[in-house]
């Protein structure tokens, strides 16, 4: 408890503060960012490689541990080197003694960023001398060449996206079905309403002739129950209309590869007409190839 007496023209104005109720047993009592001095930082993996593309962000797990014997509220500020951005760029939390909070942090390099070595700096506390950590980040540009997955350089849009998911999950380079629970895929946001769609748009026109669609099909969530059943693969025409280049019906498996006559377009989309649970459209990964 801190009590401050303000004497003003003979009248006492007493402001009673329990400022640091969180800090009543803390060695850093009374200072902002209370308790942050007891926080230690770690990152897994210890370095990161991100793609300079609209959906090229990658995730690193930041660990924040309270090494003290008292619970604290603390802050960790993340400062990315330009042109990187991070989300979240702040980790404020309650930390019980001995507890390690693990926060997935998304690191992004905007499309067009130069390849090279960069870093994200982390510091515990807003002031003072908290623990610091530097995460090295390697920025690469999307693959090119005849066998490149063009979706990796694309931007993405969707008819809707469930609040727990992000459309980028469909073109993040992760086709591991078992990662569905950690939201590396796309799930639309309108249950029992079809059609849904997810589209990728390239930075410049591309000639394409194959689309590999990975719909949800894991041991826990089998494709016959949760995967896309009926969908069309469409390309954007120069007049703004969508032309169907492949149609899939009654699908029950995880990977559907659709090949078609080569066509030049700026955008490819999957029009989801039905899923096997009739509720949601779910895409783990969408890949687009020249051949």
């Amino acid at each position, binding site marked *: *408890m801190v009590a*401050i007496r*303000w004497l*003003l*023209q003979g*009248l*006492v*104005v*007493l*402001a*009673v*503060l*329990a*400022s*640091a*109720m*969180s*800090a*009543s*047993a803390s060695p850093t009592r*009374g*200072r*902002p*960012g*209370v308790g942050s001095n007891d926080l230690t930082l770690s990152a897994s993996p210890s370095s990161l490689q991100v793609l300079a593309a609209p959906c090229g962000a990658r995730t690193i797990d930041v660990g924040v541990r309270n090494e003290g014997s*008292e*619970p604290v*509220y603390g*802050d960790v500020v993340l400062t990315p080197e330009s042109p990187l951005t991070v*989300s*979240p*760029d*702040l*980790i*404020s*939390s*309650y*930390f*019980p003694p001995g*507890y390690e*909070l693990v*926060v997935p942090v998304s690191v992004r390099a905007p499309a067009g960023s130069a390849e090279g070595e960069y870093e994200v700096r982390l510091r515990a506390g*807003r*002031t003072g001398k908290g623990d610091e950590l530097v995460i090295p980040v390697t920025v690469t540009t999307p693959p090119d060449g005849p066998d490149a997955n063009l979706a990796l350089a694309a931007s993405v849009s969707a008819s*809707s*996206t*469930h*609040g*727990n998911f*992000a459309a980028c999950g469909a073109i993040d380079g992760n086709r591991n079905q078992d990662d569905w629970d950690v939201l590396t895929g796309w*799930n639309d*946001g309108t*249950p029992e*309403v079809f059609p849904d769609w997810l589209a990728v748009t390239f930075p410049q026109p591309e000639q394409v002739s194959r689309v590999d669609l990975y719909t*949800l099909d894991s041991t826990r*969530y089998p494709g016959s129950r*949760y995967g896309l059943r009926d969908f069309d693969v469409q390309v954007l025409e120069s007049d703004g209309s969508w032309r169907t280049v492949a149609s899939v019906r009654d699908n029950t498996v995880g990977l559907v590869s659709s090949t078609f006559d080569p066509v030049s377009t700026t955008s490819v989309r999957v029009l989801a007409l039905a899923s096997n649970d009739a*509720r*949601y459209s*779910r895409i783990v990964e969408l890949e687009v190839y020249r051949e």
Partner: protein
Amino acid sequence: MTLHADAASDYTRGVASGQSASLWRAWEDERQRLWKRRGFVAASGLSALGLAFDMLRPSLATAATPKFRAYPFSLGVASGDPLPDSVVLWTRLAPEPLENFGGMDAVRVPVQWQVAEDPKFRRVVRSGSTLALPEYVHSVHVDVRGLKPGRPYYYRFRCGGEISAVGRTRTAPAPSTDLSALRFAIVSCQAWFDGFYTAYRHLAEEDLDVVLHLGDYLYEYSVRTNGGRPGVSLPEKFERVTTLLNDYRDRYALYKLDPDIQAAHAAFPWIVTWDDHEVVNNYADENHPSMPPEDFLVRRANAYRAFWEHMPVRNPPTGPDMGLYRRFSFGRLVEFNVLDTRQYRDDQACGDGLRTDCEERLDPQRTLLGPDQENWLLDGLASSTARWNVLAQQIMMAQLDFTLEPGQAFSMDLWDGYKPARDRIVSALIEHNVSNPVVLSGDIHRSMAAEIKARFDDPDSPVVGTEFIGTSISSGMDGADRDEFAEPFLANPHVKFYNAQRGYVQFTVMPERLQADYRVVPYVREPGAQITTRASFVTEDGKPGLIQVADNPPIGRLFSAQIPPPEQPVTPYE
């Protein structure tokens, strides 16, 4: 961590005076200048008043009086938890409300406050200064004491040459008062991304003594859920599912930036409680499917702390624990028992969801309120001398069979999932002959009226109390007069009214009767809807149950089958 209750209740209590004439003259001068300058005020922060308040400045190394780059009272003002001599005033300094820490540096900042009998602050009766602390993102809670009972008051804050909006509040009447009428409203469930707060705009125009918020003040989901609000672009962090303290803080800031919710807060004192979404959908004590209890309690601690930082309530949480259940009396007329049905409940029976033959829900060992709160409630009901005894809480208490099929389908998240716990309360109402029991609930995004029966499956059993279920402010989007739940819900013989639009319930309580007006708007996906009373019900003193006194024509859509069900599914974990 130790936190003494008395220390907490003393938090930032300003013990103050209204006698310092020269100081207030200076304040008034400054205020006048500011009012005149507002609109092109950007440049000069401090002028005459900076001088005056330099005298006030304590020798605090960490204190500072900032020059704000932008208006710091961007989140408005609020008051709440009215007692006969006291009310809690709230604001938060956030010149850049959507930035981390509201755009504030990590320094303590003195904030002055005033309480007056008139909106022009000619009769200031209480005033003081308190420190806004960075630990609490410069939120300000002032527990003003020494006020007169049953009186309207006006309040405002000042900091760095900037003055807040003026709020209006009201103290509770003295305990012995034979009050002739109390007017209040219940509100709940305000998903920002589902629609505009049109209902709050109308609420602010009502004539009310107090507003009760029954939970789901914010939602943990991305603000882009259901398409979000049209034409609004927000930083990426608002797409995060809230888990960190800064996630919850930023989300409160976003919700409270809305001018309609600010108007509703500024117009009346609020008594707030929470439901699940202030943390995460359908959590139960330390249990949620998203993570182990050890991790979940950290998330809960973050959510509770941000809740307190943004609400006009007296006592902050201690880590993952926050005492929120409490009691408010309005003379001899009404006693509100404000409950917390989340923090202490056993995990939902039979894996949650809708269940037909769930034995676990009948286990008398299971609790919804936790033993301490349940005892506190039952003791309070037994000893109450109020004419109307209100349970202000979150989830529907009357039995609610969701299906027209044979057998009964109950939601394991509602009181139905904790049947013996409900039976214990109903038994106590009967045993102690509690005067006029009234249950208020939210959560389900529907307007309903129901009767609390001694035995719900026996139509001949007596009516023990009356339940008014308030719809959402915005959650569930536009809705319609009826949806696919209308038929099965109304097939419950004790359910007397159903509507699936957005709005609130306004109450007028008198010694001889209570009237509930179901106020609804036809849409919320676009701003500007008008509000109408869809139906009104009366409960007479000494006669539990519902008498419908108004049944007005439907407005807006008559039927929609596309309203998300009351319990939003999490994919694909259903």
